[in-house]
Every structure is written in C-alpha cells, then in structure tokens.
C-alpha cells in the first residue's frame, strides 16, 4: 500500500506532481536552471521512469545526479551519453515533436494557452522587461504536453489576456494536433494551489485537483481567467514517504528547490547558506 507523507512542503508537492507527469520512456528537456523542475525529472528518472531520456545543456541521456545550485551543468555533462549542439537538439527532439515535457514558467499566462515572458505593459516601453522566451514559445507547441509550473498562483500571473503573446500552444485539441503532425497532449499548469488543465481550444481550463486544504473558490478567486469547476474535484495526490525521503536525502540535500519559494528579500541569505554548504562539501569552507 502506498505510504503517503504527512510532512511535506508545497514545493515538494509541486515537484512530485510534476514528476508524475513524466511517463516511462519520455524525452524530457531541461531548459534554464530551475531547481524545482530539475528535481522533478531526476526524481522521476530514479523512480517510475528509468527509461526516460533527460537532456540538459549539451548533455543527452545523462545519469541522474544530485542537485546542487552550482553543479547542475557539470553533473549533466559528466554523466552524458552524448554531447549535442542546440541545433542537434532541434533536429532530433524539438522540431519533430519528440519531446514529451519541458516544464515552463511564465510571468503571465492566460486561458488561451498563451504565455508572456517578454514584457508587462506596452511591448515597446514596458513596465517590466522580461527575459524572453528562449525556445519556450516554440516547444510549448511541439512537445507532447505543455506543462507549466507556477509557485505563486495569483491574478498577477493568471491574467485574462497576456500583455504580450511570447508564445502559445496554438494547436490544442487532440485531433487538431494530430493533423498538424504533433502528438496530442494537454496544457497543464501545476501551481502552489492546484492542478489545472486545458485540452480543447474552445473550452476553458478545468481544475483537475486541489492541493490539500485548498478550496475551489480559492483557486477561482486567484485566477484571472475562466475556470471550469467540476462537481467533485479530487485532492492532488500527496507525495509518498519515499518520494519525500528521496528528494531530501538524495536528489536535493542542499535544499536548492526551496529557493524558488523564498520571498525576494530572503533569497540572497538563503543562497549564501546553500553556497556555504557546497563549499563545505568540497572542504573549502
């Protein structure tokens, strides 16, 4: 019988929920360094998805590694079965729609499957200039699933209409996707409150599950676009004891994942703590 953990953080819950999106055999692309997503993929690889292929930086099919704030790139590189350029990635994974998951984050997202990583306000004279989308605007269409994770579910993020459409899923329904040469799959957002999904162009996002202690009203209130609220919404499956143990002891003993959840002013201090631990680990502290 599955033994669920009683003590876990919302970050751990999101991480495990994202890990559960990885099916065995999937091809998973790790984009920019985001500890929560990296931890998810590594957790999936060492548990239920040993035949998944992970790609990060130039490293293809790297051995799962212990996460660290500084060493993700060298870990992936040193454990790689193959070293690729970005163009080889494109030619083998992205363009063909062979990727299954590359979880993205975004400054804004709306109910149409649009994301905005470009600008808040006017594009040409923005209040906030975002980082840009890198490959996200394209791969969210090409990959089997479009998965996003949002540590701060709010109307600031989930807006009626994004200020700038950096990218969009574009082909959404299963039939439409197959016709366009892509595998069908949902848009799914994992947040600190719930899991919401969209599977048809003309239907709104729907609440799939609510995290323990969260009400549907709370989710609706914090979402700036229409949500379908089914009658009986299940609770988001909790992390198992083993998953929490693995995350804390094996995958992320430095606690890098928690970084994403620290308020702005605590971040620097927390980062210094992590770095100190990394120095200690190599005897240089």
């Amino acid at each position: 019988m599955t033994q669920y953990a009683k003590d876990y953080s919302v970050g751990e819950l999101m991480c495990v929920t994202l890990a559960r999106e990885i099916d065995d055999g999937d091809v998973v692309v790790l984009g920019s360094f985001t500890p929560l997503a990296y931890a998810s993929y590594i957790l999936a690889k060492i548990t239920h998805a040993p035949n998944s292929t992970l790609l990060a930086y130039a490293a293809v099919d790297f051995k799962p590694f212990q996460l660290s704030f500084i060493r993700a790139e060298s870990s992936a590189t040193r454990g790689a079965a193959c070293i690729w350029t970005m163009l080889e990635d494109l030619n083998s994974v992205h363009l063909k729609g062979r990727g299954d998951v590359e979880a993205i984050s975004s400054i804004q997202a709306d109910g149409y499957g649009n994301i905005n990583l470009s600008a808040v306000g006017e594009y040409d004279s923005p209040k906030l200039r975002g980082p840009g989308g890198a490959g996200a605007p394209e791969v969210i269409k090409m990959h089997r699933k479009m998965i996003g994770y949002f540590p701060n579910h709010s109307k600031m993020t989930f807006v009626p209409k994004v200020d700038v459409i950096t990218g969009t899923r574009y082909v959404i329904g299963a039939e439409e996707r197959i016709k366009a040469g892509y595998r069908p799959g949902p848009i799914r957002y994992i947040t600190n409150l719930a899991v919401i999904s969209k599977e048809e162009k003309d239907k709104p996002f729907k609440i799939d599950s609510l995290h323990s202690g969260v009400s549907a009203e709370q989710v609706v209130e914090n979402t700036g676009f229409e949500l379908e609220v089914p009658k009986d919404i299940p609770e988001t499956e909790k992390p198992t004891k083993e998953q929490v143990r693995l995350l804390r002891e094996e995958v992320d003993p430095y606690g890098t994942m928690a970084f994403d959840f620290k308020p702005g002013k605590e971040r620097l201090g927390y980062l210094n703590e992590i770095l100190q631990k990394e120095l200690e680990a190599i005897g240089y502290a």
Partner: protein
Amino acid sequence: MPTESKVAKLSDISKIIKDGDTVAIGGSWLGSHPMAVIREIIRQKIKNLTAITVVGSIDVDLLIGAGCLSRLMFSFVSMEAFGLAPNFRRAIEKEGLPYDEITGLAVIIGLEAGGRNVPFLPYRGPFGSDLVKFRPEFYKEIKCPFTGEDLIAAAAIVPDVAIIHATRADNTGNVQIDGTSGTDVEMMRAAKKRIVSVEEIVSPEEIRRNPAKTKIPGFQVDMVIEAPLGAHPCSCAPDYVFDPWHIMKYMQAAMSPETFQQYIDEYVMKPEFEYLEAIGGMKQAAILRRLAREVKFL
C-alpha cells in the same frame, strides 16, 4: 612548407571586431560565454555593436552596461536563478535600446540558414506569437510547395563576427568543446569572421587523439586566443562551474549605473590576468574547478 598559425593575443581582437559590427556571442545560460573577449571589447572601447545571443546572461548584460551596444538581437537574457539581467532591463525599460526579440528556434534556424547560404529555412514555427507579428523582417508565413501546409520561414542571420569560448584548440583552429556548446557551432558557420578563445592551446596531435570532440574545424576559425578561465564568471563545463560569489557581486554592482561603472573600473579595465587575480586568483580557480569535478550520481 610550415602551416600558418592562427594564434593571437587578446589585444588582437580589434583586427577582426570593428565599431558597428554585428557580433554573435557564443555560450548559453551561465555557460561558456566568451567573457575574456567581451572584457577586451570593453577595454578597447569598441562601440556601436549589434550583439546576437540565443540564451544570454552576463555576457550581454556587461556589454550593455559598458555602453558597447547600439542594438541587441536575443531570444532570452537572464541571470538565471540570480534574477533578471539588470543592465538589459534598464536599457530597454528606460534607455530605449533598440532590440529584436526573436524566438529561440528562429535564431538558431536563422544562424543555420546563414551558415548554409540560404536566405531562409522553414519550420512549423511559433504561429500565434506576437513576436512573429512584431518582426516581419525575421518571420514570414509561407506554404509548402508540395503539400500546401502552413509554415513559418525564419530569415537567415549572417553575423560579421562570431566569438565563442571553448575547451581547447590547436594553432590551426581545430576547436574542441567538451561541454555546453549552445549555438557556438552554428554561429561559427554563419559568421564572416570567427574568433575563439580557449582554455588551452594544444598540439594538432592532441586534437587528433579524439577527433570526435572537434566541433569546429580550423577552416571555420580565423583567430585562436588562449584565455584560461576565459569564461569566468560563467562556467566552462565540465572543467569549472560558474562563480556565484562573483555573480552576486556583479548583481549588486549593476543595481545602478554609478556602482556599475565602479565594477567596470575595478574589474574590467585592467589586463585579463589582473582580472583573474581580482576575482580570487588561483584559490578561486581551484574552488570552481573542484566543484565541477565533485558531482554525485544517483
């Protein structure tokens, strides 16, 4: 007859990079940016450059902060977990730096097109993205002449110069990259002139011991510069990690133009080996290299 050597000094970059050039900058995220060459561009006060980056970070932010750019083409610029890129934000939000934001695959495919001498390449591109609408000079909707399918044509990108940082090269310019190559190979193929800085220059025999590692052959390289720790404060995987302590210092300095000018004076406007001493010298190098080796597999 002996072969000619392409080995040069950092100060020689101005023989290739000129005011007003379009410069493609290799590396990606916080990895393998050609930082020694970028610092040299600032030292030599080369100006009015258009920078091209796919996934940029401190490389682009530093050039912007130092006033070297008159335009920027990018798909992503961020200091990753350290936050948004301060000079990049300020330049766009407050100072009106002209820019072309192009989706990541379109930049890569555009460079690929430039490298293979075609004015465009088609793909199932970012239909519905505002970026396509905003920059029609880089995107056109077309139809497949065989099937009639809708596709997006990405325009070719041909930089004047590509600059990359790599693991090693020989004096004829055969370049090996052991780790993150980003779009280095595509930039070198597309550009008219190419500069590579490397951790070490090795013999042609050493290169031939493992030809599979050679990502760029000599005929695609015009200048080779030895610059140990030349990606600092970025990483050069798997040899050394990025320097989070220095990057935090940078982020602090970049909060205002005034403090940033102090950073430039203190770190950049001195010979490269003095920069390496300023950031911690041999001990810091040892830490960054050791961290890169001490990885744990599960």
